[in-house]
Structures are given as structure tokens and as C-alpha cells.
């Protein structure tokens, strides 16, 4: 039995399953679907009625960002024989994880009151409980801190990517169907970084200037980082065949950290700052070095784009917006 349970998701991971094309049909014919809100009309109550541990594979997609998704994560763990954190959000927090730069109130204020094009003169914010006459309506309540799946329950397997690369999805499903799953705790993907799979030519890192992607047309054959574009390749797990650099856009890190890394953002910070201005570092004074480093405008957003909840500091602290 297979269940696909959503957290704070975008359905992009559902698409990656459907994108398998004929293989998707093969898989769907071979399994019983216990729950898949995006594609099947099965009810949550039916899932809840199943015996615990009876669903062979549960794919949990999306981060945990409110009390409902937290409940779904716990439900997924109860019903699953093998629980897979499916996609970058479940594995590391993903894009929803960036909400950790603010508090719950900060995010709600921004979305419902402060954005320039929003007209909300009474400052109405969504609240958990609303009374309409005799009826009480409840909606989920946001957590202050977005979490990855393994920050709520024990996870058996990880399939990163935004969305997960088709090849990895196909491999993982094949392994599951044939009963040949790898040891628990395995992260599907390469043991090396994206650079290992990237076909671009790497010569010498002589980066004096950090350039934004729109500022020039990059040479399609040369390493993007060498051309001054921040590419997360060095700090990101491979397994995606470096599809983004192949398509002339820099890696953004959606496969998460490399195997030995404790913090994807810190590793990229270290790699980039070590290598920038390498040739001239000895002859420069502090202010000149600072000018080069200052070109990296948003280290937090750039280096932790997908992995903020799983970073060492997990969220922004102190006075929050």
C-alpha cells in the first residue's frame, strides 16, 4: 500500500510522481493507494481507520508549518511501515522554511496588512476560530517555527529535491516495490556534490566580482561560480544530474546538504568566502576585502534557501519582524 500525505506542500512533488509517465502507470497498477488527496478521492477517515504500520510506503511531502500539518506528520508516522520525507520541504523545510526569518505574527502582518498592494484597513488577520451564527469554524494555526518532517517524527528515508529528480523517484519506487530498500536513514541521491555531475569546465577560481544572474549572459560551457554567479553546487548533494547548470541557471541547493555536512549554508559560506578574491587576498587591507565580501547581498536567503529549518540555528532569533 502507498499513501501520499501532504504537509505544507505545493503539489510539485505530486507532479514529479505523475511525470514518471508510463512508469507512473506501472507503479499505480502495482499498488493500492491508501490516500492521495491530489489525485484520488480517498478520505482522511479511511486512512485513519487503517491499522497502524500497515501502509508499506508513506510519502510525506511538504514542511510542517501549522498544527494541522503537524498532525498529518504524526498520522503519517503512525500508519507507515516506511516513512519517506519526499521532496526538499519534508527533508529540510524547503521554501516554506524561509518563514523562519520572521515570527508567525510577523508573517501574518506582512501577508495581510503590510504589503503595498493590500487593502486591509481594519487589519483583519486569519484567526483559528471564527463564529458564524451558530457555527464555529476552525482553521489551522501557524507554528512560530517551520519544521522539517524529522523534527517532528522519526523518518525512515529521505528523497530530496524540489521536486525530487525523476530518476531518484523511479529508483526509490522500484526499490520499494521489489522489497529491496536500502538501510533506514538513507538519503536518496549522490554521495558527492552537484559539481561532480556538472558538465561545465572548471579552470581556476578567480572571482573578483559577484554578479547577479540578470547582469550578463553567462558562458554556457564554463563553471558559473568562476564567472561570478553564486551557484550552490559545491555545497549541494548531487543526484539531479546538475540539470539546472546544464540549463544555464545556477544551482539553488534544492537537494540539500552533502552527506558529511552539518549545515548547508555554512558550508557554502565557507566555500564562497574562501575562494572569492583568492589571488589578491594577501595584498589587500581589511576595507578592500570587506568591499568584495559585501557583494554577497543576502547570505541567509541565498545559502539557506531550502534548508533553513535544518540549519544549526534553525531560525532568526531576537527581535523579529
Amino acid at each position, binding site marked *: 500500500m502507498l499513501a501520499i500525505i501532504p504537509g505544507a506542500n505545493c503539489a510539485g512533488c505530486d507532479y514529479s510522481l505523475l511525470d514518471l509517465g508510463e512508469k507512473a502507470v506501472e507503479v499505480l497498477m502495482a499498488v493500492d493507494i491508501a490516500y492521495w488527496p491530489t489525485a484520488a478521492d480517498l478520505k482522511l477517515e479511511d486512512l485513519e481507520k487503517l491499522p497502524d504500520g500497515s501502509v508499506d510506503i508513506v510519502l510525506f511531502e511538504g514542511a510542517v508549518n501549522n498544527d494541522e500539518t503537524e498532525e498529518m506528520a504524526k498520522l503519517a508516522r503512525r500508519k507507515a511501515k516506511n516513512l519517506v520525507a519526499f521532496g526538499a520541504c519534508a527533508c529540510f523545510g524547503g521554501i516554506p522554511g524561509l518563514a523562519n526569518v520572521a515570527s508567525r505574527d510577523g508573517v501574518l502582518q506582512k501577508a495581510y496588512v503590510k504589503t503595498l498592494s493590500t487593502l486591509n484597513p481594519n487589519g483583519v488577520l486569519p484567526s483559528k476560530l471564527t463564529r458564524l451564527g451558530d457555527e464555529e469554524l476552525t482553521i489551522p494555526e501557524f507554528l512560530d517555527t517551520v519544521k522539517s518532517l524529522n523534527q517532528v517524527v522519526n523518518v525512515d528515508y529521505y528523497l530530496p529535491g524540489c521536486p525530487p529528480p525523476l530518476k531518484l523517484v523511479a529508483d526509490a519506487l522500484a526499490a520499494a516495490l521489489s522489497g529491496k530498500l536500502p538501510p533506514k536513514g538513507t538519503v536518496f541521491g549522490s554521495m558527492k556534490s552537484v559539481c561532480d555531475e556538472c558538465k561545465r569546465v572548471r579552470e581556476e577560481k578567480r572571482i573578483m566580482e559577484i554578479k547577479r544572474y540578470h547582469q550578463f549572459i553567462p558562458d554556457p560551457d564554463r563553471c558559473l561560480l568562476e564567472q561570478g554567479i553564486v551557484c550552490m553546487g559545491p555545497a549541494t548533494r548531487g543526484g539531479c544530474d546538475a540539470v539546472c547548470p546544464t540549463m544555464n541557471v545556477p544551482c539553488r541547493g534544492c537537494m540539500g546538504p552533502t552527506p558529511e555536512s552539518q549545515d548547508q549554508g555554512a558550508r557554502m559560506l565557507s566555500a564562497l568566502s574562501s575562494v572569492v578574491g583568492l589571488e589578491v587576498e594577501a595584498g589587500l587591507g581589511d576595507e578592500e*576585502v570587506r568591499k568584495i565580501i559585501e557583494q554577497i547581498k543576502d547570505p541567509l536567503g541565498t545559502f539557506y534557501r531550502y534548508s533553513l529549518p535544518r540549519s544549526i540555528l534553525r531560525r532568526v532569533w531576537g527581535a523579529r519582524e
Partner: protein
Amino acid sequence: MGEVFEPNIVVFACNWCSYAGMDLAGTSRIQYPSNLKVIRVMCSGRINPVFILEAFASGADGVLVTGCHPGDCHYMSGNYKTRKRVMLLEKLLEQFGIEKGRLRLEWVSASEGERFASIAREFVEQIRKLGPNRILEELRKEVALV
């Protein structure tokens, strides 16, 4: 008012210059605060930004990174990397809400025992003013680890 806040400070010191400088302070019996927890590394360039983040996440109120003066690195260029890494890390830490001043970089040579002691005293007072780092408390409260 209660007890005075005693900062918990982690110091990274390179084996060749800065650790020797601290040793000199010690052998010369120069008094400096005992708030410092010193970690010796072979070169300041060995310091992975992860160590500094871990220090703050583990409750350090301040982190002092020390190394050889630029040009004097025992391994030639390690400290140049340190300088750039710490600069970018300062920017990152501010974004994370860890106030400017909690991470500091100082070049200390093997002969600068007195200077190290005065840096230590100054840094402890600076951190005392900034107050305790509440991250560890909050981490334990807010985020359930499985």
C-alpha cells in the same frame, strides 16, 4: 537584581601565534577573566564556520576567533581565508539575529601576552553589556527534536 551575568565565551586560537600569546599571558602571570573557554586549532584557517554556529547554538554568549597577523601565518595563507570567512559570517549572524559584536576576530602574535589579556577583558565586558544569548533556551523550548 541578583547575580551578575558571567558571559560564556568560546575562543578559537591557532597553535603557532595566538595560543602561544595566551600562554605567554599565563606564564607572565597576567590576570585575565576566566570566562574564556579556549579551543586550540593548528591554524585559524581550520575554523569551519560551522564551529562558530555550533558555539552560539550551544549557548556561547560570545565567540572570539584569534590567529596570526596577516603575513605571518605559519601555513602562509590560512588567516586570509579566516578573515574573509569571519567577515561574511558576521553578516550572516546579523541576519540570524545574533547581535554585532558577539563574534570578534583578533590577530594575536606569540609575543602579545599583555595585549591578549586586555582583549579578553574588553571582550568579556562587551558581551556582559550585550547580555546572555538566549538561543539555547529557546531551541530547547520551541523545537522538539526526535
